[in-house]
């Protein structure tokens, strides 16, 4: 075979494989959107879910997902930032740091249902926190930490070594060099990482079934008292998220329109996660442009 033919065959094969990947993605997302989008309406998004009757919405589940995401980021971001800075800037090259890195790898590959059950036993049962947004946020922090830490470490490391030398040679301490120069330069990458991990957290279900619970008690959106059990802000109340709702409606839903509710919820979930991804690219690019030039 001459090189030209080999090249043509190789390119053909590569295009075929790419086409397979794209086809899977498009058919999957297409199916979810085609079956779900017609059911999405203002009423669907803003009314509460029904247990027996048709016409239920996803208002509370939607809010719970967002609130849970917010709490998860509040818990995981500071820890991830600290450990990311340590790994990127301070950690010496020895076996202890290697153990830390391996631990992070392992943590990120734990099956979510195992983490969910672990958190159920430890936080929900042993520590008497009960099914609550807080327990859910702790469980999700377990997933989020390795991703975020890795992302922050890589973002910091990708800042040129010349910048570090420039800072130190100006008489800045290592800490000032990191917080004043390296961290701002790494912000675009870090923001992108946060939003991408947020998308993953948003779609998580298995770990939440055992921690945040599967019930959506009636909550009052006008009650701003965090300690009141009916307040929408109370982190100690059980809270069913959108992803858990989809699972529940499919496995034990008895409403006549369970199918439609499930398709609609799935479509909302997918659309939101796609938006997260687009937002990540957009904000990342915007920040990068802002930091590197002011045209």
């Amino acid at each position, binding site marked *: 075979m001459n090189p030209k033919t080999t090249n043509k065959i190789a390119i053909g094969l590569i295009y075929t494989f790419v086409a397979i990947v794209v086809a899977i993605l498009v058919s999957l997302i297409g199916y979810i959107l085609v079956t779900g989008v017609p059911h999405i309406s203002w009423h669907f998004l803003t009314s509460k879910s029904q247990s027996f009757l048709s016409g239920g919405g996803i208002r509370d589940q939607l809010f719970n997902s967002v609130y849970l995401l917010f709490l998860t980021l509040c818990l995981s971001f500071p820890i991830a930032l600290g450990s990311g800075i340590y790994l990127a800037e301070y950690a010496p090259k020895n076996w202890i740091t290697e153990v830390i890195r391996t631990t992070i790898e392992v943590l990120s590959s734990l099956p979510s249902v195992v983490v969910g059950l672990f958190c159920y036993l430890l936080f929900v049962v042993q520590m008497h926190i009960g099914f609550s947004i807080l327990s859910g946020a702790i469980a999700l922090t377990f997933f989020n930490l390795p991703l975020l830490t890795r992302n922050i470490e890589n973002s910091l490391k990708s800042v040129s070594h010349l910048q570090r030398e*420039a*800072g*130190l*040679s100006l*008489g800045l301490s290592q800490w000032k060099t990191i917080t004043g120069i390296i961290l*701002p330069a790494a912000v675009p990458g870090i923001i992108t990482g946060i939003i991408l991990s947020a998308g993953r957290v948003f779609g998580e279900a298995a770990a939440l079934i055992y921690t945040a619970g599967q019930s959506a008690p009636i909550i009052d959106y006008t009650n701003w008292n965090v300690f009141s059990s009916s307040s929408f802000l109370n982190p100690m109340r059980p809270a069913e998220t959108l992803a858990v709702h989809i699972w529940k409606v499919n496995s034990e839903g008895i409403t006549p329109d369970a199918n439609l509710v499930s398709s609609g919820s799935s479509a909302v979930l997918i659309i939101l996660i796609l938006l997260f991804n687009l937002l990540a690219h957009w904000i990342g690019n915007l920040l990068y442009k802002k930091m590197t030039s002011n045209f």
Partner: protein
Amino acid sequence: MTGILQTKNVHLYYGKNEALHGFDLNFNENEITTLIGPSGCGKSTFLRCLNRMNDLRPNVTINGSFKFEGKDIYSPSIDLTELRKTIGMVFQQPNPFPFSVYDNVAYGLKLAGMKNKHKIDKIVEESLKEAAVWDEVKDSINKSALSFSGGQQQRICIARVLAVKPKIILMDEPTSALDPISSSKIEDTLVRLKKDFTIIMVTHNMQQASRISDKTAFLLNGDLIEYDSTQKMFVNPSNKKTSDYLNGEFG
């Protein structure tokens, strides 16, 4: 005349590998001294000893005496950040921070605790003027420093060092990444800066060394071969190796 910076019996090891074999070099105030020699001769390594940038590298052992205005640079009681402010450094690659020109120059001052905006503005302007880049950046001082050309970036980096008022400026091949026009602008700048600062510069460019420096040190394989006034060295070197190197027979 005793120098502002005196080094004695300098030995440096990368692990067990000796890279500098023990030599003395003294630097005079308000002079430009260039270090020349083939790649790998240890001139950049030596330069980085002078503001302790080698501390960042693992496995480096440094012996010998380094005295700046009579004080030991490697004494445990020395304030490292203070030392690096007094002995500033300009690198081979222009490395401005990804901030505006103004912030690049003002950064060291702000972190040193200076709050007076008016005073900072004044020093920023002075430093950029001293570094001969003011006219080119004054209308876009809030633009990112990264949007300027390499030569302009390097002069912004010089201004950044000048702003913290060092006594000595170390330069590690400051023009090797630049075009000839930018290089000559920087050379002019250095000659003007001499009256206020002491400059120690590593260069690969013989013409540059002969044009602007008062003294030249020739290093070869970790040894100091010859150290003399630039004029004497380029016209009538006393060591055969020096004349061979200057004539381009090796290196």
